[in-house]
């Protein structure tokens, strides 16, 4: 199953900006009549400038997107808001047609842009399963065959003959997802439907999606949940403003995404003239890198991260130390780590010359998320010189690749804790079930 099952060629979609028509036939005729006589548009808002370019105002939601998917692959589609992800999904699910380009697919395509599409609140759970199944493209016989499985998966068997208007929102979503999960198409297109339900149900959903890909079927998955993307997908496609920015291995695409979306810079270099300095020490550069010395912004939660500082000492024999301060997105300082942390620290003087200091943050310490790095050179006590501080000089992102050996294991939902150290645990059985504790004496 390594044949191409989806081929997207030069796919573009444009939307007209502004009001497409006045919305009424009468209005359109009136506007047309005014234009014919060279009068201003009667529907133009007062104070709004007439740019006379209404005809040409189009916005490209997708522009020349090209990619192909092989059978059995799981592809994550990521990008910022407005990148064109939803438009791509809509075209793939045939909700709207592209402006140009072609999509070709082999096998039944089912899309899940929403769960519970067409659910009718007056109908019972059972009736809605059949209705929703039919809307998704299942035949009546097919739904009947899978009915028990669907109800079982949803966990609402007690309420299956109750109208869904009496369901809690959780039950509603569970039943809706259960139908969708049993679609069994060759190609499944999924929007962020996983962002529903409680943690346990999310886990169940992710498990089901994993099953789908392992069963040789192809999944296209759009999400803002990077943990889910990295857990499910082998490859990813990164869109920005309608264009393909990158595609390839999920890890490297995620890294590119974080750099782009969160304006994460993993490295900063200064020239002699622009470098921050206090006359004693001058910054030259800072970067974040991994154990292979590769500069990057997205790090696997399990791997150590190096923060490397390059600086020049301009005057000898003055005591100071560089310090790396890591802050999370809420500006909470996670730690403050000075370079010279030893008993003689206030005597650590440096000769003039260029220096290179690296601070290693161990793997399995931080939690997922984005961090910014503040660097401070402090000390300078004898000269009462001011220190140098650089706020948010670089930033980095930590993600969990969900291979199961991080602290998180296979749990996809929220995981509490400000830090997530992998601590040593010793567990042993003290008493077998039903056994007696041997007592000493008496």
């Amino acid at each position, binding site marked *: 199953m390594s044949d191409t099952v989806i*081929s997207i060629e030069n796919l573009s979609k444009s*939307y007209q900006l502004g009001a*497409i*028509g006045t*919305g*009424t*036939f*009468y209005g*359109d005729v009136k506007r047309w009549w005014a234009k014919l006589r060279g009068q201003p548009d009667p529907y133009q808002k007062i104070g709004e400038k007439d740019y006379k370019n209404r005809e040409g105002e189009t916005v490209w939601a997708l522009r020349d997107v090209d990619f192909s998917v092989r059978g059995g692959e799981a592809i994550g589609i990521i990008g910022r808001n407005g990148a064109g992800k939803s438009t791509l999904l*809509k*075209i*793939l*699910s*045939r*909700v*709207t*047609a*592209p*402006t*140009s*380009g*072609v*999509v*070709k*697919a*082999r*096998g*039944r*395509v089912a*899309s899940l*842009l*929403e769960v519970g*599409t*067409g659910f*009718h609140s*007056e*109908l019972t759970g059972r*009736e809605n399963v*059949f*209705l929703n199944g*039919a*809307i*998704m*493209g*299942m*035949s*009546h016989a097919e739904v009947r065959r899978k009915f028990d499985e669907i109800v079982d998966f949803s966990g609402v068997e007690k309420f299956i003959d109750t*109208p869904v208007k009496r369901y809690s929102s959780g039950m509603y979503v569970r039943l809706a997802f259960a139908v969708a999960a049993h679609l069994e198409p060759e190609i499944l297109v999924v929007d962020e439907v996983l962002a529903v339900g409680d943690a346990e149900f999310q886990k169940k959903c992710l498990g089901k999606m994993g099953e789908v890909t392992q069963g040789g079927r192809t999944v296209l998955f759009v999400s803002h949940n990077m943990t889910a993307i990295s857990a499910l997908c082998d490859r990813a496609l990164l869109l920005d403003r309608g264009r393909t920015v990158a595609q390839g291995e999920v890890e490297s695409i995620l890294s590119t995404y974080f750099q782009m979306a969160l304006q994460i810079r993993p490295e900063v270099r200064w020239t002699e003239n622009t470098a921050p300095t206090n006359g004693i020490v001058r910054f030259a550069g800072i970067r974040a890198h991994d154990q292979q010395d590769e500069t990057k912004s997205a790090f696997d939660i399990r791997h150590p991260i190096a923060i490397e500082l390059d600086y020049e000492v301009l005057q000898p024999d003055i005591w100071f130390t560089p310090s790396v301060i890591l802050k999370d997105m809420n500006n909470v300082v996670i730690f403050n780590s000075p370079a010279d942390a030893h008993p003689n620290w206030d005597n650590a003087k440096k000769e003039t010359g260029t220096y290179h200091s690296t601070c290693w943050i161990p793997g399995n310490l931080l939690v997922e998320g984005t961090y910014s790095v503040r660097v401070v050179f402090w000390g300078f006590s004898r000269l009462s010189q001011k220190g140098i501080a650089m706020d948010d000089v670089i930033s980095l992102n930590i993600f969990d690749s969900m291979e199961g050996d991080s602290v998180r294991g296979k749990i996809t939902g929220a995981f509490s804790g400000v830090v997530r150290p992998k601590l040593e645990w010793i567990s042993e059985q003290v008493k077998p079930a039903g056994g007696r504790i041997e007592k000493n004496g008496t």
Partner: protein
Amino acid sequence: MELKTSNQEEWSLVIHPQRAWWDLHLGDLWRYRDLVWMFVWRDFVAYYKQTILGPLWYLVQPIMTTGVFTIIFGNIAQLSTDGLPPFLFYLAGNTVWGYFSASLTSTSTTFTSNAAILGKVYFPRLAIPISVVISNIISFAIRLGVFLGFLIYYVAVGVNVSITWWALSLPLLILIMAGLGLGMGIIVSSLTTKYRDLQQLIGFGVQLMMYATPVIYPISTVQGNWQWLVLANPMTPVVEVFRLAFLGVSSLSPLYLLYSLGATLVILMIGILIFNRVEATFMDTV
């Protein structure tokens, strides 16, 4: 719009910017026939569940309207009813007209009132108006039952009406009304994706069309200038043949039904073609 590639590729789905106008996806519709039935069933069950009287509502409306017609057009205006009891005459017209007008009005909002579901999932869009036309048959059947009940009552009290062999043409009459309502309805619904004010026009238009159909008057009273309009109306033969079938009176040759059938096929065809053009991108404008 076939893609000419050197190697013959086997794609089961090809999404193009614009479909060819003859590419109607009717095969797709056949594959989704279960969905059509699910929609029909949903409409019926949901309607039934929300009301106290349930299907009884289907009885109230035609009887009330017919009563009003009998008083205004029969007793006050004293219009001719071809010698038939006015109540029976108007009830016959209302029964037939009710199905056609319900089919037309409810299919004319296909795109606008189903935008939420149509924006989320693909299925042949024609499934919605077709299911609406079919589920309207259910209410038609109830109205027909009411009509037949009154017919039996009138026959029992000795009124001279006769049921003719034309009664067997009832399925054809239903088919013509369904096709005509569907065809006109989807034309309107396609246009309403851009022009919402057509929606206002539809209720008014149906009302006007009823006066151009022999519902409250027999065709025999139509003379002079406006006769062509009534005769050009494809619903005219349907109403007249229905009266001929169940009341035994009509001055229009039943062969006019062939004209109705032809006009219905043409309108339906135009409707499907326009609908097919609009459905691909209507989500962008609705």
